[in-house]
């Protein structure tokens, strides 16, 4: 099962065979970065300043904009903008946390699996395949059931579920590198394994890995929103966007702002990181770089 004929699900190998114009490429990256930065800014500002206290329920129930509430209030009279800002923080936290776990566990597992041979190799590959077919959300539900519904559990759960995806990718990438001659040369010349990994393997796989992790970030944000929507994410009163949407569902028609704003921000963040991933792939991925004239 080396060198799959099929693309890895995670890295859509958009090999624009032709030289995409640099301008265009940087436009993608730029657009992605600005969208992501917008949300990151919200999250960062929320650390030092919020329009209202998060627990401040002094606003009127589902009030419209005004009275210091730029976007109005939610059903408990909390400021919507405040909630959106803390929500941004949770989303970014969820994304970063999950990806960190996925990277750590996934790369370790993937590298180990790549060195496996024979039936062990087949079994590991098959196991990862089965695991991947189970949606992140489902695995996360189990983890959350085992621990309790906190942001930490959600991040752990999502990160672990994603590490299977990362492990599979890394395994394939590493196998690809291992097949190259200079690795064989390094091995026969007696270079130690950790050295080989550090000196030859990681430098070769990191561009693809980084692009993939960026995509995983977006998926993690969506998964956290899904978990929160099901009541399994950051517990109330934390203003996770998913939870805000769940709460605003009942008042969708009467007070649409609360049911639209978190969704829009979610889309902005995920589109943003996906564009960043696309842009990065075009600039980093050796597969595409090689094809350029």
């Amino acid at each position, binding site marked *: 099962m080396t060198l799959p004929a099929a693309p890895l699900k995670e890295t859509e190998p958009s090999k624009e065979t032709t030289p995409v114009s640099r301008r265009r490429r940087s436009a993608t990256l730029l657009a992605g970065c600005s969208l992501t930065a917008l949300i990151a800014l919200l999250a960062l500002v929320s650390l030092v300043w919020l329009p209202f206290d998060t627990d401040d329920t002094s606003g009127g129930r589902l009030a419209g904009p005004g009275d210091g509430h730029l976007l109005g209030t939610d059903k408990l009279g909390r400021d919507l903008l405040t909630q959106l800002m803390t929500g941004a923080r949770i989303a970014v936290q969820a994304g970063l946390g999950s990806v960190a776990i996925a990277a750590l566990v996934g790369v370790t597992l993937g590298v180990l699996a790549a060195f496996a041979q024979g039936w062990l190799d087949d079994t590991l590959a098959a196991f990862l395949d089965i695991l991947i077919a189970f949606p992140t959300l489902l695995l996360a539900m189990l983890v959350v059931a085992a621990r309790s519904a906190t942001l930490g559990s959600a991040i752990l759960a999502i990160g672990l579920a994603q590490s299977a995806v990362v492990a599979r990718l890394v395994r394939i990438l590493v196998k690809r590198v291992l097949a190259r001659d200079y690795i064989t040369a390094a091995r026969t010349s007696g270079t130690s394994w950790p050295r080989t990994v550090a000196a030859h393997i990681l430098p070769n796989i990191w561009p693809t890995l980084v692009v993939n992790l960026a995509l995983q970030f977006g998926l993690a944000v969506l998964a956290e929103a899904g978990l929160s929507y099901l*009541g399994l994410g950051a*517990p109330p009163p934390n203003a996770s966007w998913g939870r805000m949407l769940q709460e605003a569902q*009942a*008042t969708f028609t009467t007070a649409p702002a609360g049911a639209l704003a978190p969704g829009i921000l979610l889309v902005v963040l995920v589109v943003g990181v996906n564009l960043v991933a696309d842009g990065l792939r075009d600039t980093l991925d050796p597969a595409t770089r090689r094809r350029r004239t």
Partner: protein
Amino acid sequence: MSKNSRTRASLYGTATVATLALGLTACGGGSDGGSASAGTWDKNATVNIGSLYEPQNLDNTAGGGQGVTEALNGNVYEGLFKLTDDGKVEKLLAQNHEVSKDGLTYTFTLRDGVKFHSGKELTSADVKYSLEKVLAKDSQSARKSNLEVVKDIATPDAKTVKVTLSKKSISFVYNLSYVWIINSEAENLKTTEDGTGPYKLAKWTRGSALSLDRFAGYWGDAAANKKAVYHYYKDASALNNALLTNAVDVVTSEQSPDALEQFKSNKNYKVNDGDSTTKLLLAFNDKAKPFTDVKVRQAVSAAIDDKKLLESVWGGYGKLIGSMVPPTDPWYEDLTDVNAYDVTKAKKLLDEAGYAKGFSFTLDTPNYDPHPTAATFIKSQLAKVGITVKINTITPDEWYTKVYKNRDFTATLQEHVNDRDLVWYGNPDFYWGYDDKQVTQWVEQAEEASTTEEQTELLKKVNRKTAEDAASDWLYLYPQIVVASSKLSGYPLNGLNSQFYAYDIKKKG
């Protein structure tokens, strides 16, 4: 049985919340027939009832849950007595009953001409079987402990049942209203039924709906509609959407005020504000520091503005209570003035208790609404008197293990759904650990009282004493909101203890 007899348990119905905290909790409920006396109605109508509480199975002694009570109690199964929607106990299958002088022997005469859905005639053997089923070793009935006073059941003839108690129990007849009379020969009671009610089960599709058909051989007045279908939803929004799109005609119990605006402003719907028995409690562990100190409990109670909390959770709905007793219980007294909101007083009490600088405690908060909201609110209120609250969000399952079984908590939030549940304060082993010899004695005496007046008198004392001791902080009484299509009339408004009688519901054509 003993002290705690007359309460029926069930914190949230029974099953620990079916879904992962989709925000559903159990509801409580009043009783008795709905509103309006419709002029003409469709006698062959199908009434679609929307609910959040699906039965786990159809046997209320095998963990059927709150949903089975809602769908089957009074509709499919009947007891010797029934609890009306306004909380009165009336005779149903019992034609008559006599109590011996010592209050230990109850003799019931059964109504004539009562038939089970299978066609068999009701006999005293069925009553004995049904009572024994509740008391059986593997019974998961929430009423089991209440009925354990039963020492002997005799059936002198086909129409007479004689029950002997081990000690007096004034709530015995009330408790009997929860005992379904089931055909002693019936089988597969988890998926089928054989009761005597005005409806028989047509079909139960798990995860979706349960439908009831009018029973032609019913002994009393026939149901006012031909078919009643309970549609089950896991999420309040989905349920409200169903009502808005006419997929259901009535919602048994709204769990948040969110959607009410759109129903109130629409003449096609009627929003009914009934009496509930569900109380939201900030339950202290009275055996854990610092809540061992009455003054600390009083201070916390006085530091929280219940009115504002109720307003923010329920909009204009719901009531304030000063104790465990809802207005529908016979021993109700308005005690909202006891430990009322007063920050100055709270500070003074804390000072007296030696906590002038405040303290901090962990609040175990179930992860579904309204608990987290209430916790947030309490946190911000108590901060004003120097008390720091650490909110620890837990699942219903954890709540049972950590709080209910292991008593490993300092304070918790929980909703208590049932009526007449003041008596738990007489049980020093209950999870909140309130232990007052006097109260325990009063509760025991009340249960063994000869007259309801005597019982009421004693429980009023319990009520006042627990309120003054701030045994818990009773934050508010939930509203019981039934929203129905304006075509409907005759539906229950209070849904006491989760019952929802469908047989009087009339639907205009």
